[in-house]
């Protein structure tokens, strides 16, 4: 398919007029993809009274915002959102369309891909543009959709060589959010929308949300504990160290399952992906699912009594020993230096 359109579309997810971080992460990545393809970066925004959100996308390089603003689109609902996107994709046939791999994105993208017969790859952790030889055909400028598979044991590169639109959902936190020094002068294209009966078939009866009080993604220092700490009592060491360093507390899935720490602090494939300045992993063996959520950290210190623990393979500094001895030692030494 040589006539594939070079435009890159990003679905902008917003709640009550607040755009999701992942949408800006995708615009930042999408900008680079569009530059490589010499195509246009387009933000697709649905909601009610969200013009301010539209303007924010210019700071991340959107050259055009396709805006569908209507009171009945205030909250995300699969039926109207998918119909609108299906019609837009069928009309414009963007070469690439990206969604965050959030609950919303993972609900919406497959429905759109099904109707438009687009290729869709879930939960990508990297995207690249490359020429590809597949079987005996040469393809120019395909989107390489890179994702973990088989429980994170392999990394697969997926391509959709013969479709008009290559779609992907991308995990939150893995692409860097990179605002431009000055926003581009983009245009807002408003698209008319009239709800039909099928759009309104599913109704929201109630909605409850608690804003996340902990923002691990924004923390410059994270101290994370694992199952290796053994007890909830020992896990207090993690809180002590985090308090002294001014960092946030996190945990591995095993630590969360054991009740040492609350689920919103979980780092890893089923938790949050973080890339702080400093990540200290204590008593975390470093299963692939955990490493996937932290290995991009600027500096990693691993503390573990098992010298063979896989966490050391991603660490910059490794300390083999008992956390109950090392952490107090670290805290005391640090306090002395601050004096």
């Amino acid at each position, binding site marked *: 398919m040589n006539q594939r359109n070079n435009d890159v579309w990003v679905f902008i997810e917003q709640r009550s007029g607040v755009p999701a971080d992942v949408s800006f992460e995708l615009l930042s990545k999408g900008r680079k993809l569009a530059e490589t393809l010499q195509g246009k970066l387009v933000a697709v925004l649905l909601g009610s009274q969200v013009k301010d959100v539209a303007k924010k996308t210019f700071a991340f390089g959107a050259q055009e915002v396709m805006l569908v603003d209507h009171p009945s689109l205030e909250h995300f609902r699969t039926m109207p959102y998918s119909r609108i996107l299906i019609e837009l994709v069928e009309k414009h046939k963007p070469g690439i369309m990206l969604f965050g791999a959030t609950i919303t994105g993972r609900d919406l993208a497959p*429905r759109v891909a099904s109707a438009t017969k687009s290729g869709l790859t879930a939960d990508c952790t990297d995207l690249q543009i490359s020429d590809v030889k597949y079987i005996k055909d040469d393809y120019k400028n395909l989107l390489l959709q890179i994702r973990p598979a088989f429980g994170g044991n392999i*990394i697969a590169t997926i391509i959709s060589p013969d479709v008009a639109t290559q779609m992907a959902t991308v995990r939150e936190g893995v692409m860097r959010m990179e605002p431009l020094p000055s926003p581009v002068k983009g245009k807002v294209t408003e698209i008319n929308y009239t709800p039909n009966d099928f759009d309104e078939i599913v109704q929201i009866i109630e909605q409850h949300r608690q804003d996340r009080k902990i923002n691990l993604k924004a923390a410059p220092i994270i101290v994370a504990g694992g199952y290796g700490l053994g007890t909830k009592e020992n896990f207090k060491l993690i809180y002590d160290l985090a308090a002294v360093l001014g960092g946030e507390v996190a945990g591995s899935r095993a630590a969360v399952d054991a009740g040492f720490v609350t689920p919103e602090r979980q780092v890893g494939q089923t938790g949050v992906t973080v890339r702080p300045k*400093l990540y200290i992993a204590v008593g975390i063996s470093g299963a692939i699912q955990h490493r996937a959520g932290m290995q991009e950290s600027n500096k990693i210190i691993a503390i573990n009594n098992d010298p063979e623990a896989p966490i050391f393979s991603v660490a910059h500094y490794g300390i083999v020993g008992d956390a109950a001895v090392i952490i107090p030692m670290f805290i005391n030494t640090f306090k002395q230096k601050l004096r």
Partner: protein
Amino acid sequence: MSYNSIVLVKQVPDTANISGQVMKDDGTVNRAKLPAIFNFEDRVALEFALQIKDRFGGKVTAITMGPPRASDILRECLYMGADDAYLISDRKFAGADTLATSYVLSEAIKKIGNYDLIFGGRQAIDGDTAQVGPQTAEKLHIPQITYAQEIISLENGKVRIRRKIEGGYEILESPLPALITVIKDAADPRPFKARRVMAYKNAKTLMELEKLTESNSLLYIDQLVNEYTTKNLYIRTLTMDELQLDAARCGVHGSPTKVHKVESVVLSSSGHQAIPPTKEGMSKLIDELMHDHILG
């Protein structure tokens, strides 16, 4: 008022228990070495359907698309309480991505018909895509509710579902039919019933009956199918021809996504700096971090 449910189930490799032997030298997965299990979230989906049957009456039909050996999980569905099971299997389905899979499943569902609710797990642990549910719903032109946690009510032809959303939950109301995908903590799947295990352990698919005829020339397949059907032991088997499918939309041909490359995740033996667990060690480490403006 009773409600009929169709449950989408999948047999998956046990990706949580991958050992060295499973990964081939070229980085691909040796599926034959992986134990095949019933995808857990699909068992939760079956539990949802069985609870509706317990409460309101109606029929529960489990369906799977997969190779002949996927009949194992269909028997398990019967052990749990499903009334009926279908294996959707054909060599021409091999290599299907989610788009091709949802095409075949939606056509099979149209053929089975007579359903109010379709349930499935949110995602299968081999691909973790969560795409087949919504794609099947789209092809059937019915609404979908994903990430379901609880059935709040079912009355007057409408279902109310509590579903997970970012940072909370919402309750949605949808008319029937609707397709619902459930998350793993939504319900505890019931254990097998001993009486049902005894009753259905000999239930067989078309391929399994064909195997019997291969080893015994006195048996004829049509006769066997009739016999097993009468005894309520026939797991109905749908092939591409039976479903009158468009070959261009099945298997590899119907799959827009292709696997270009797979690599096993290799741990780079990174040259991390070993810090001795002593005061001097800590001191040196902290100095270095302070020097790099990471601490202090």
